[in-house]
């Protein structure tokens, strides 16, 4: 439980929460383990869960149309302990915009996006802090996409 709490407190979406608020999030958390090379989710599929890394390394990849008819996969971000991914489960179109792949044996916290959204709607104090953090994560991907394209 402490490793889950530690990862949440380090993550952008949940770092601003009070102890009491964090307990409500903890009730939604599950844990999953992935082996090296496993796909956590694929770009273009229905976005259901938000993820926080507790151990290991997850890379975010995206298909880029380099030229019409020529699509190339590019690495956008390398994520570690406390990093959040899968924000499409809570924000926007609910379709994953990137593919998440385990680079080494990894453990992650998963939170059902529908349940989380319901909690945020019911408690705007929590909602504001979490949504602000998720927007920060999404905004930071702008740099990641730029790096990927210009690499």
């Amino acid at each position, binding site marked *: 439980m402490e490793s889950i709490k530690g990862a949440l407190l380090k993550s952008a979406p949940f770092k601003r929460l009070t102890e009491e608020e964090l307990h409500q999030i903890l009730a939604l958390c599950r844990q999953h383990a992935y082996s090296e090379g496993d796909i956590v989710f694929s770009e273009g599929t229905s976005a259901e869960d938000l993820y926080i890394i507790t151990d290991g390394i997850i890379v975010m990849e995206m298909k*880029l149309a380099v030229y019409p008819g020529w699509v190339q996969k590019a690495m956008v971000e390398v994520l570690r302990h406390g990093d959040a991914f899968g924000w499409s489960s809570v*924000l926007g*179109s609910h379709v994953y*915009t990137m593919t998440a792949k385990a680079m080494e044996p990894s453990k992650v916290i998963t939170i059902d996006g529908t349940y989380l959204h319901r909690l945020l709607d019911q408690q705007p104090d929590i909602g504001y802090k979490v*949504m*602000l953090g*998720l*927007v920060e994560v999404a905004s930071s991907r*702008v740099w990641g996409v730029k790096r990927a394209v*210009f690499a």
Partner: protein
Amino acid sequence: MLKELLVSSDLFNGLSDASLTPIEQMARLEDHEKRSYLFVEGGEPHDLFIIVEGKVEMDLSLSPTPGTGYQIAVDTLGKGQTCGWSSVLESHVYTMTAKCIEPVKAIAINGAQLRSFLDQNPSIGYRVMQNMAWVVTSRLRNMKIRLPLALGRESKPR
């Protein structure tokens, strides 16, 4: 008048009249000439902008040093659209350059002042952040489509 413009924007739509009053008091209407910049990539973020009239092109620098070298247009914004969200997120730099490709009328709001207001009013903040999430994710989607293609066919010195 500013309130009507704010409520029809992508960032503040859905807010009540009472919620918009303090935001209206932070807002100022500005005129910007064609070919001027609302802000430059890599610059220290101060203001958030909502376009009232005209078109703004969002450019990314091809150089590793933000805001320098060749620029690529990744999005074009018009009436009611928002740019400069970095000023509200307390980021260190603007992530893109916002260039007026027509004479532009825009509402400018100090990002730190707006952030402080949202921190103190989380119910309003939650709504605004939900809207901002749409703005950021749609910008990312457009960028993902336009950036690689633009890189292949067009780049221009600033």
